[in-house]
């Protein structure tokens, strides 16, 4: 605990106020990020496993059932063998909720996060997939840094860190469209379903479809990424959005794409939508596709 005394000038003259800050050393952040990188890549969350198990029962295609069975067996083997479930251990996407009553001490927060990624990808035998100089030389940075880091300042004195490693197969099939308000709900639905249809087997279905609506160009993309963080066994708290999600899921699973795109009923496990206000003249919509290796791990310091 750090006590900071702030000198302020009040109407009546000088006064002294005390506020308390919780101190979190960067070394703690590094070690948490390291552990999350390794755990997220090895252990498939229970909510995802359960959704895939449910889908096996509903899958009509024998090849589809075979593939879903392989995915479930693979998840078990990854945990047993302590190996990453997928060889594409992804870009390390790090979402930080930093309490405003926290003082990060001992160094640079961004550097500490990247150091955690470096150590996690090295000691976890994870694949290093980041290239520097993307336009020209595309040279591997050799340690999977830099991470993609999103920091939000929130009330409180905790630091919540979520690691969401993301492979290129599904990320490459994601899209932002600046739609017109006149495109309406039907426009959003058609865009989301068409984005999944055009992706076919590329994003490794069964997928989770993250949708962001509102904000602006960059904000809706971030919303669609955050929409993927909702556990698959939780419904959207907004009943209208929940109904929209269910309708989209039904339409997507009628496309016939199926597991790995080889035909079947199980194209998506869930559609998850997040919205925020936007400009009167805009309706930004982002679709972030997520492969069946839905990898997220969270820790709170």
């Amino acid at each position, binding site marked *: 605990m750090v006590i900071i005394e702030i000198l302020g000038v009040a109407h009546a003259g000088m006064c002294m106020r005390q506020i308390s800050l919780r101190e979190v050393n960067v070394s703690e952040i590094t070690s948490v990020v390291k552990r999350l990188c390794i755990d997220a890549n090895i252990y498939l969350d229970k909510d995802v496993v359960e959704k895939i198990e449910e889908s096996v029962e509903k899958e009509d295609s024998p090849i589809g059932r075979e593939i879903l069975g*392989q995915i479930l067996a*693979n998840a078990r083997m*990854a945990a047993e063998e302590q190996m*990453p479930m997928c*060889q594409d251990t992804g870009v390390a996407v790090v979402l930080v909720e930093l309490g405003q009553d926290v003082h990060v001490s001992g160094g640079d927060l961004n550097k500490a996060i990247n150091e955690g990624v470096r150590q996690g990808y090295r000691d976890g035998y*994870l694949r290093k997939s980041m290239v520097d100089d993307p336009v020209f030389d595309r040279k591997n940075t050799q340690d999977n840094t830099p991470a993609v880091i999103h920091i939000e300042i929130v009330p409180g004195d905790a630091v919540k860190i979520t690691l969401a490693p993301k492979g290129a197969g599904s990320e490459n099939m994601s899209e932002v469209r600046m739609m017109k308000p006149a495109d309406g709900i039907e426009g959003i639905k058609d865009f989301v379903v068409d984005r999944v249809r055009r992706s076919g*087997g590329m994003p490794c279905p069964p997928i989770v479809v993250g949708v962001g609506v509102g904000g602006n160009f960059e904000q809706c993309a971030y919303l669609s990424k955050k929409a993927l963080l909702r556990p698959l066994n939780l419904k959207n708290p907004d009943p209208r959005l929940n109904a929209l999600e269910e309708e989209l899921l039904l339409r997507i699973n009628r496309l016939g794409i199926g597991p790995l795109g080889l035909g079947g009923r199980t194209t998506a496990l869930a559609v998850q939508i997040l919205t925020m206000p936007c400009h009167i003249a805009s309706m930004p919509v982002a679709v972030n596709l997520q492969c069946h290796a839905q990898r997220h791990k969270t820790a709170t310091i």
Partner: protein
Amino acid sequence: MTKEVLLRTPLNEEENAKLEAGFKVLLSGKIYTARDAAHKRLAQLIKEGKSLPFDPRGQVIYYVGPTPEKPGRIVGSAGPTTSGRMDPYTPTLLDAGVKGTIGKGQRSREVIDAIIRNKAVYFAATGGAAVLIAKSIRNSKLVAYDDLGPEAIRELVIENFPCIVAIDSRGRNLYEEGVKKYQIP
């Protein structure tokens, strides 16, 4: 019922002709790994009339960039990557004698034409089933392009590697047939 076939590399046109889109295959023998950067180099060598780091005739190329192997292990996690990125180079390699490719996702019209022309076959492996697939890999040897790291060319010895015939030597395409069969208008 899905038909299951045991198959051994190298492949030949007669054996390939017996494989139909939708067959489940357990593949054994030697295969070669290559991804984007290695393909670029291989296609360039062919263009220049130079020899390749391995004799391509009858061989199978697996599109994979494994995770680093832990000490004492043969290979790390090793599932397929998206095949479409290799499409610009694949016809050149098939014309040079490669008889099979393994990856995930659809192929271009040009690749399908080259598969038919060369009586080759395209196998789909389960994307993301990287530990399960790694269990069928019995040996791994660096062949070329160590500088490419996970994208280097390796010779793998596999035993009962699980895959599915996605595009057969006549051009039948499970990515189209399967989707048509299960789509609900």
